[in-house]
């Protein structure tokens, strides 16, 4: 076991989400502010109780986004003692670290995502979206004329990995297909989801090839949206609510691959394996205790990696595992007879939020607040694992 001094010492006390849409015609900041205000109101606190902010993105001074400087100014929060920007899985962990370290007592996380102009023809036609990319800052000249730099922070290696995975383990696309159908079946019951129509396994296989063998239905759905959370100490949370959602254990992860992703390590050594190993070395709750599972679904191959790295099955066996744990009537996954997967539809069905909507779904389900979509037996433990094979992965166990 590794040290886990933060065990059950932190809690999520506020959740806020914007509507999700393909074209909301709003800025990152506008979306982020709506989610932030909703999360602060959900927590039932005054805005000036916020003393830490984790904004969106990777650069502290980026303009036109929802970084912590813009958020603090726009929200009129007088003083903070901690601020940072991040995305994907690491944002949640950074904010929790800040509260555990004492640099913040009440930390706001805001994550905004919009449909990038490179994601569709209609998005490219929008001059505001093109400007956002032109003036955004993701660190250099990726996608420039040197083709050899194309996989510096690219999704394309995931397509290469789909084929390599099938080749190395002698399997077909079943694992990817089950995840895609599962998310769309759940999304059809989530009024906030952009994809309201369920799909079949045949629909999955018939979808357009984008980066062959990766197909359209392997990719999360680009949308305009924002999610926000408020994290505080468990002690403070108990003054605010009878049954706070606690952070039981968490881990980040990284490997020596670096930023050129063609240097990938073998499948079962990517950053998800490091991260999940780090989590289980710290968590007293084990896989069999988990009621809700959120494996990152930026691409279906991410979710397959997380499922295997979490220990549900051996590397290469995810397709068989999903087939054995498929609820035919509901067209969803139900793992080992108890664990529901991506109950809001995830990135593949609700919309791409870099996994931020997994936290809001998990917290609402664990509070018993999902109304018609509420799981009858209110879940008590959730496993969320978000990120990339190469950067910013996190794994978190939440409990009540």
């Amino acid at each position: 076991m590794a040290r886990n001094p933060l065990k059950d010492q932190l809690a999520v006390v506020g959740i806020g989400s914007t509507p999700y849409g393909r074209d909301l015609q709003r800025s990152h900041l506008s979306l982020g502010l709506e989610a932030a205000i909703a999360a602060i109101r959900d927590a039932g606190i005054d805005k000036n109780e916020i003393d830490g902010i984790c904004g969106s993105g990777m650069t502290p001074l980026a303009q036109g986004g929802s970084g912590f400087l813009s958020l603090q100014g726009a929200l009129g929060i007088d003083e903070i003692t901690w601020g940072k920007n991040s995305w994907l899985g690491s944002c949640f962990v950074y904010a929790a670290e800040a509260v555990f370290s004492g640099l913040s007592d009440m930390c706001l996380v805001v994550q905004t995502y919009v449909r990038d102009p490179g994601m569709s023809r209609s998005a490219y036609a929008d001059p505001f979206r093109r400007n956002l990319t032109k003036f955004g800052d993701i660190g250099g000249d990726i996608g420039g004329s040197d083709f050899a730099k194309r996989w510096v922070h690219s999704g394309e290696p995931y397509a290469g990995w789909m084929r390599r995975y099938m080749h190395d383990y002698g399997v077909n696309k079943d694992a990817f297909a089950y995840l895609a159908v599962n998310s769309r079946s759940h999304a059809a019951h989530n009024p906030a989801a952009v994809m309201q129509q369920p799909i079949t396994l045949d629909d999955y296989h018939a979808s357009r090839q984008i980066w062959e063998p990766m197909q359209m239905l392997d990719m999360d759905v680009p949308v305009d949206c924002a999610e926000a959370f408020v994290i505080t100490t468990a002690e403070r949370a108990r003054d605010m609510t009878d049954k706070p959602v606690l952070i039981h254990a968490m881990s980040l992860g990284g490997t020596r691959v670096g930023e050129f992703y063609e240097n990938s390590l073998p499948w079962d050594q990517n950053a998800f394996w490091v991260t999940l190993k780090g989590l289980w070395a710290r968590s007293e709750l084990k896989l069999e205790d988990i009621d809700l599972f959120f494996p990152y679904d930026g691409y279906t191959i991410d979710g397959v990696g997380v499922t295997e790295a979490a220990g549900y099955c051996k590397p290469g066996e995810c397709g068989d595992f999903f087939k054995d744990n498929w609820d035919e009537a509901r067209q969803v996954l139900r793992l080992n007879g108890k664990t529901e997967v991506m109950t809001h539809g995830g990135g593949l069905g609700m919309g791409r939020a870099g996994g931020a909507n997994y936290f809001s779904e998990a917290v609402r389900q664990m509070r018993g607040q999902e109304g018609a979509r509420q799981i009858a037996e209110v879940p008590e433990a959730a496993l969320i694992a978000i990120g990339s094979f190469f950067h910013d992965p996190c794994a978190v166990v939440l409990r009540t």
Partner: protein
Amino acid sequence: MRNYGPLDDFTLIELYPDVQVNRDNVEYYRGLAERKLLINHCADCGTWIYPHRPICPECWSWNVKAEEVSGLGSVFMWTTLMQQRSPSAPHEPVPVAAVDFAEQKGLRYLSRIVNCRPEDITHDMPVRLTWIEIGNLEWPAFEPIPGGAN
């Protein structure tokens, strides 16, 4: 066959206006301008280092030199791009592959596969370096080795 010869830093940076040429990768781009593919090599322990970094990750030597590679390798993984990042740009499907260099296991370089139908590419297929002209520059690409065994 464009070979700009050994270029000074100012001319080299002007030749690659949309690439961040810096002090760690400058010899790689100076090599490309001469139609040579150079990869950093540790003069102390012999490890090949890619991307262009100033130290050897194995022995931490700073005695790292950009050296020409054989251009021989095999396909580790690949995808065929059916749509570009800028969807308004018309284009043909582009096979893009991580090529494992013969010099060292796991030493990989991302490149186009040319002179081969995308459906004929296989894992571990032997390939060799060739060059393709785009605008005023030549860039590395890889093609199957005729008669090369899988």
